[in-house]
């Protein structure tokens, strides 16, 4: 029996929320099925967002990657690639949705705080208080090659930098006094004089001297999500974020992660329930458990075909492995060891090629796995996957609600644009019957819908070093 006691004053809400993560890249989204549609047409985004809203989802998420993934020195050919700018797409979706939250993943290294904060505030006002920022900290020089700054940030600095960035953004969002704008055209001035506070920040990496251009929104300021799992990342989230987009969906693991986050949140002087957790997840559902399993095998075969399996290993081996049989054992030849992470993308960053290869060969041999089976197991996010009948999965999810392991799930549909249909049509009603899922939107803003408290205004005098 799982020890579900979280401690530190944490109280499970007994409720779950859902979000949808529209994935633009990688192998999670099946493109080889006849049913799979365009990854870039606006209609795909509209279809998913409106279906999610029909299912009372709290949020629609977009990820971000500012350089195309590469493989052996060229763009990676086998997986879905290419996606629109998150905030531009979300602004468009704001006009054809009315309640769902709109979450943009944006990194703190290749943006300017004044510019990013202004655009997020715009999205927040345009959507009537439904915007959120998923803060990520990409720091590789490889992404930097597309930007003026280049790859200027040391790995160790990224959360220090992120924290100063977020603090500056919060001060920008808090800069207009409430009620600053005149209530009538007959007023002496459009905004009360002195009601917009300039924001100054001087630090190691950048200087901001800015007069903010926008008032607070219906939800005061954009909701903050954080994605990043290191101890520094967790502490950063505990201090700054409203929600963590986590990588821990398995029940035991999720409970452990919750305990850790509650501890860090309390240590940061916040309430035990102040930071919500929504892990990344995938659902493969059907009317019966047998059908669901069959569907899972089909989905997996489309996600990781023979070419993807070999190419996956090639990324880490740093060389072509075409001569190896995808249904045979892992290659006995050794990886090219030179540090080539600059061209291999963030998936490889920091890994030790030879050590990794030895470890994987041993593991595959132990379990009797072929290249394809091994790669499929590693990449299918087996941990984050819920497979089963609607009722079975609803029962499992109810356990998460009861224990407070998570506050909800952020679902990556494996099919675009119809991949949410069975979840909304069948899983959501099952969850509602169990009393663990909303039966209506709680309010008009994302903050209200997530049950988050109204933020406290940042004091003007905060001086953060970066």
């Amino acid at each position: 029996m799982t020890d579900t006691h979280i401690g530190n004053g944490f109280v499970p809400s007994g409720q779950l929320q859902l979000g949808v993560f529209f994935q633009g890249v990688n192998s999670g989204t099946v493109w080889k099925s006849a049913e799979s549609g365009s990854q870039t047409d606006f209609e795909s985004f509209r279809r998913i967002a409106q279906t999610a809203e029909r299912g009372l989802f709290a949020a629609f998420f977009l990820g971000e990657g500012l350089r195309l993934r590469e493989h052996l020195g060229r763009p990676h050919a086998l997986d879905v690639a290419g996606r629109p700018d998150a905030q531009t797409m979300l602004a468009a979706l704001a006009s054809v949705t009315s309640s769902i939250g709109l979450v943009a993943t944006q990194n703190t290294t290749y943006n300017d705080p004044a510019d990013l904060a202004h655009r997020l505030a715009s999205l927040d006002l345009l959507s009537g208080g439904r915007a959120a920022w998923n803060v990520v900290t990409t720091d590789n020089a490889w992404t930097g090659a597309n930007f003026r700054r280049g790859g200027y940030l040391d790995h160790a600095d990224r959360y220090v930098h992120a924290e100063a960035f977020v603090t500056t953004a919060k001060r920008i969002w808090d800069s207009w006094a409430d009620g600053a704008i005149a209530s009538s055209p007959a007023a002496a001035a459009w905004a009360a004089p002195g009601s917009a506070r300039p924001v100054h920040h001087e630090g190691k990496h950048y200087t901001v001297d800015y007069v903010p251009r926008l008032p607070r929104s219906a939800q005061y300021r954009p909701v903050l999500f954080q994605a990043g799992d290191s101890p520094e990342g967790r502490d950063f989230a505990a201090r700054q974020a409203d929600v963590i987009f986590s990588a821990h969906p398995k029940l035991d693991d999720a409970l452990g992660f919750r305990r850790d986050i509650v501890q860090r949140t309390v240590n940061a002087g916040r309430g035990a329930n102040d930071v919500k957790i929504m892990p990344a997840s995938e659902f493969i559902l059907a009317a019966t458990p047998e059908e669901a399993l069959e569907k899972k095998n089909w989905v997996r075969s489309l996600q990781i075909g023979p070419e993807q399996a070999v190419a996956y290993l090639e990324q880490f081996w740093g060389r072509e492995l075409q001569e190896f049989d995808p249904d045979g054992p892992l290659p006995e030849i050794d990886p090219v060891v030179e540090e080539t992470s600059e061209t291999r993308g963030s998936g490889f960053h920091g890994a030790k090629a030879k050590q990794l290869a030895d470890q994987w060969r041993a593991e595959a041999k132990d379990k009797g796995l072929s290249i394809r089976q091994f790669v499929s197991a590693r990449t299918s996010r087996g941990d984050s996957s819920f497979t089963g009948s609607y009722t079975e999965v609803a029962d499992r999810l109810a356990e998460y609600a009861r224990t407070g392991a998570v506050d909800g799930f952020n679902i990556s549909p494996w099919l675009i644009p119809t991949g949410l249909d069975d979840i909304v049509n069948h899983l959501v009603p099952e969850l509602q019957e169990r009393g663990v899922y909303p039966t209506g939107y709680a309010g008009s803003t994302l903050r209200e819908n997530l049950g988050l408290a109204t933020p406290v205004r940042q004091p003007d005098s905060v001086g953060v070093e970066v």
Partner: protein
Amino acid sequence: MNTTSTNAPRQGFLALELDGDGAHPAAWRKARHTPAELLDGTRVRATVLAAESAGFHVATFADGSLPAASSDAGGRDIPGRLNALQRAAFAGPVTGSIVLVPEVDTVYTEPFHISTQLASLDYVSGGRAGWLVAASDKVADAAAVGRSHVSGEGLGREAADSVEVSRRLWDSWEDDAVIRDVATGRYIDVDQLHYVDFESTVDFESAAGAGYSVKGPSIIPRPLQGQLPVLVPAGLLNADQLSAGAADALLVSAPTPELLAGEAAEARAAAPGAAIIAELDVVLDSRGQSAAGRLAELDAYTPWQSSRARFVGSAAELTGLLASVLETADGVRLHPAVLDVDLEELAQLVLPALRRRGLLATPQPGSTFRDLLGLQRPASRYAAATISASSAADH
């Protein structure tokens, strides 16, 4: 453009600038809503739909900083503004024919972000997107991002560089790069993706700002139009930059309405390939109040200083002026003093009269901005290179 028959009148297009409550700084005092209702999606939707149903071909969205409420000069008027590109994107799915053109600064923004955002705008509007190039000369904009201030010739260089990066990135995925070839397991054909390897022309040591490079390829497939039309204020780019093809259209200003036609003709001579769009501020007689009276009333609050030609008068007079300007310019961009008031007159009197005289292109649902400008959809520059390289190899 649109010269099908020698007897038919030349057909042009009309653009409308939709920022705030109108172009006059005191416009908010005459708006038909409360000040607090300005900065939200409802207002954006209402104005762009009003412009579309009036028959405007293009909506433009101003951007950049406004005088702060806390400072004395101009502190009585609107100090806030939503991001222009997002307003255009928000309008995309709710409109069907009007072209959406945000102003985007080129000096203090990241070219890579601009290129992706504009390409995305093209997707969410079904190919109805354009780019109005701005080059901020404000010290405050430099301070906001902690960069040194760019002025003079540096502005043109930054703008030209930024346009060139975007154009290369838009071409960096050839049109058919997404192949979805189940047989070989390939989603994209890597031979149809290209590094742009851009190096800025700004001297790395110069006071105009640090140089930079952009690797590419883009992170989004080629925009629906292939290349978004790029609108540039006349005078920003020099002759070399213009002949390198930076601008698809030039925005032309003159001190008075009467001088506009002459300026337009001059700009056409300087940039023969580009469409010419004349800029005009507009105050119209409305509901029994004379335009001059309306303007005096607004100016008593805050004087309207503008570098554009200004028309103040009746709808019939404006119709005549526009007819004559459209003989030399391809389009006119109107900046109404008060949107809620002047747009009503434009929609009810001016545009119908111009249409009756056959002077306006008919907006076609489903057509692109390039269609409106009479521009072909270009092949990717890299596709052309691949073809010529391979045919050279064949011989």
